[in-house]
C-alpha cells in the first residue's frame, strides 16, 4: 500500500510523481520521447518493459498494458522463458538479452552481446534501447520504493510528453 497521497483522479504512479510537479513533467517528457519519436519499434520496447517488470516482480508495472504496441498475448505468456521460445525474432532476442541483465546482472553484459545489439540496431539504436531499458528498470524501482498500487489499465501507449504516466 502506498504511503503517499497524490493528486486525486490520476493513476497512482502519476499521482505520486505529481507531488513534485516540475520533476514529474520532465520525467514524462523524457519517458514519452522514448515512445513518441518511434526510435525503436513499440513492440520491442513493450516486450523489454514487461520483461524488466517480471524480473522486478513489479505488479504495478505489469498491470499496465499498452494495447497498440503490437505485442501478441502469446508473446506475453512466453516472455518469462523467451530464450527457449520461438515466438521472438532475433532482434527481439537481442533486445531481451539486455532487458534480462539490466536489473540485477548489469555487470554481466558482455562485449559480444553489445556487438550483437549493434548489429541489429546500430549505435544510435543501441543508445536508445539502453536508455529505454534503464528507464523501465527505474520505473519499477520507483513504483516499488514509493509503494504505488497496481492499477490495471489498457493504455494505447505508455506516455507522451503531454499525457499521463500510467
Amino acid at each position, binding site marked *: 500500500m502506498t504511503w503517499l497521497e497524490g493528486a486525486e483522479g490520476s493513476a497512482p504512479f502519476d499521482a505520486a510523481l505529481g507531488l*513534485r510537479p*516540475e*520533476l514529474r513533467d*520532465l*520525467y514524462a*517528457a*523524457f519517458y514519452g*520521447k*522514448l515512445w513518441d*519519436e518511434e*526510435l525503436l519499434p513499440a513492440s520491442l520496447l513493450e516486450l523489454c518493459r514487461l520483461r524488466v517488470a517480471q524480473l522486478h516482480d513489479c505488479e504495478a508495472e505489469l498491470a499496465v498494458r499498452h494495447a497498440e504496441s503490437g505485442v501478441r498475448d502469446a508473446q506475453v505468456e512466453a516472455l518469462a522463458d523467451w530464450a527457449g521460445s520461438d515466438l521472438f525474432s532475433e532482434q527481439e532476442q537481442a533486445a531481451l538479452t539486455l532487458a534480462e541483465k539490466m536489473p540485477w546482472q*548489469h*555487470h554481466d*553484459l*558482455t*562485449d559480444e552481446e*553489445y556487438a550483437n545489439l*549493434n548489429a541489429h540496431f546500430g*549505435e*544510435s539504436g*543501441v*543508445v*536508445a534501447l539502453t*536508455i529505454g531499458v534503464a528507464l523501465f528498470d527505474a520505473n519499477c524501482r520507483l513504483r516499488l520504493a514509493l509503494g504505488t498500487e497496481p492499477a490495471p489499465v489498457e493504455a494505447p501507449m505508455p506516455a507522451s510528453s503531454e499525457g499521463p504516466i500510467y
Partner: protein
Amino acid sequence: MSTKPRVSSAIPGEEASFGTALAHQPGLAGAFGMLYGTFWSKGALDHRTKEVTRMRNARVTDCGY
C-alpha cells in the same frame, strides 16, 4: 563489465564518454539533461543529501565511472 566504451562518441573530435554516447540520441539526451539538471538545481533536498545518495548508489552498483 567492459572496460572499453561499447558505443563511440557521436561528437567528432571528442572521446567516447557518457555524454558523447548519449549524443547519438540528441532528443533523449536533451530530455535527460533537463530532468537531471532540474533535480540538481532545484527542489526540496539539499545538495549534500543528493550527493551522498548519488555516491552511495554508485558504490552499491559498483559503477566506477
